[in-house]
């Protein structure tokens, strides 16, 4: 446990260097995920013990409860819009991009992602069931995982 905590302390400092005080906030289970996002790569959680895929990543597999078996895997990021809303009243942090279109997307891997839809042209054509892709783009000065319609 001491060795793991020393590693966590080191990673926490590296997370702070990349993401500041957050969000996103530090966790051992998501450290590599957010480092990947900073480098422009979107990944899903994958359990090395039971082969299940899940999102967000975490220190314990939600299927088999294996500890520290997270093995991030790449994904095409293709899925469908489950629902969406356009938010006109938002926090101060989001005002520069308001109104924002929040979308909930189910990926082909049977995991659910909540994020923003980018693309002004897409606002008028989005519908429940629209095909879309999750990727990494810079928004509000940082890399984020976001959706665009296909």
């Amino acid at each position: 446990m001491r060795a793991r905590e020393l590693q966590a302390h080191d990673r926490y400092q590296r997370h702070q260097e990349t993401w500041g005080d957050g969000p996103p906030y530090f966790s051992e289970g998501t450290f590599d995920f957010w480092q990947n996002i900073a480098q422009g790569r979107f990944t899903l959680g994958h359990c090395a013990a039971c082969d299940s895929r899940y999102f967000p990543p975490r220190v314990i597999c939600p299927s088999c409860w294996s500890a520290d078996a997270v093995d991030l895997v790449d994904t095409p990021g293709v899925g469908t819009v489950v629902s969406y809303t356009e938010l006109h009243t938002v926090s101060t942090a989001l005002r520069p991009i308001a109104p924002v279109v929040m979308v909930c997307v189910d990926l082909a891997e049977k995991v659910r992602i909540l994020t923003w839809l980018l693309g002004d042209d897409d606002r008028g054509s989005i519908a429940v069931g629209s095909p879309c892709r999750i990727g990494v783009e810079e928004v509000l000065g940082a890399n984020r995982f976001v959706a665009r319609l296909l």
Partner: protein
Amino acid sequence: MTDVAIAGSAVVPIGLYAQPEEDLIMRCVVAAAADAGVSRSDIRGIIAMATRPQSVQQYQAAHIASRLRLDIEFLAELEVSALGLCSALRLAESVIRDRDIPAVVIVGASRESLVPTVDFLEHRTSRTTDASFVGPFGMAPIAWCALGARQLLASGEATEEDFAAVSVRLRRNASMNPVAYFRAPITAEDVMASRMVAAPLRLLMICPRADGAGAIMVVRPDVAALRPTRAAVHLAQGLAHDGDNVISEQAGRSFCELPSTRVAAEDAFNRAGIDYSDVDVVEPWVPFTPMEIMVMRGLGFPRDYWTTTEVSPSGGLVSRGHPLLATGFYNVHEVIQQLRGEAGPRQVDAARVGLTVSESGNFNGCAVDVFGRLDGRTAN
């Protein structure tokens, strides 16, 4: 029938208050004691909803007990949640039975007006869902309701005009409720012309964040028996949770079906030995009008539930107002007024069974509380 019962209830009119929470709570405790016919010395326990972060005074239970010089042997504070009052009722009932004490008072207050909505979105709701993966995208109660409302529209289960009709009915009800915040009647045209906040939710489909406070006096059977026509029995509590934290991680789950509501309703009805047709009045925790449709259909009531069951005669959260920690008190208060036959112009005929429906998260968790009169008779 003899049982632990709610013998007294008091609330302050919902509004914008300069008085701090302690002032409002103390007024409610004294009013609830008078309503229940109990004396200060009868009140041997106090349960408070844990104070909101914006409140100056913390540890409100001990503070109120001291200020009112209550001679208590039991004290508790329950974490903020829409289910807090449901848990407090069960706790009070248990303490009265275990310790054989005459009365326990439950109190709660919220001054939501102290926190501007943008700050509320920034500092609170962004961290009640997943603080890294969901909240930063702007998730808030209005957003998760909007996601469900969008699915209702897309599936043809409801229209925007249906949402507006709920707003109009709630405002009509609130116009007859002296403690409601918004009481001027509105039309469907007013609702549809109001500005979009979180599509498809418009301003007049949304609860006002406001201030309020309440107190409920739970008493021992022999104390309740002194007022059989005014005491309400908590007949059953149905509970369910679907395992999610607002936004399901699992693909395929619906935003508008709210499975916990049906499970909780069936649990409550089985425990109370009643059916849907027995329910005369429902006061659900629904801060947005599309959610009333989701909740009532989710519970198992018919699609046109408003034709058979009186829903939110108080005006509901959308018109009565939504002082978060105190809202449960207003729901219970209305049911008690209805069961007593003291609801004035909004009185439901021959009310005998009333429900409150409470949530945690996006109705991930649901509590259905069933209330009836101590004497088992109907109001009026």
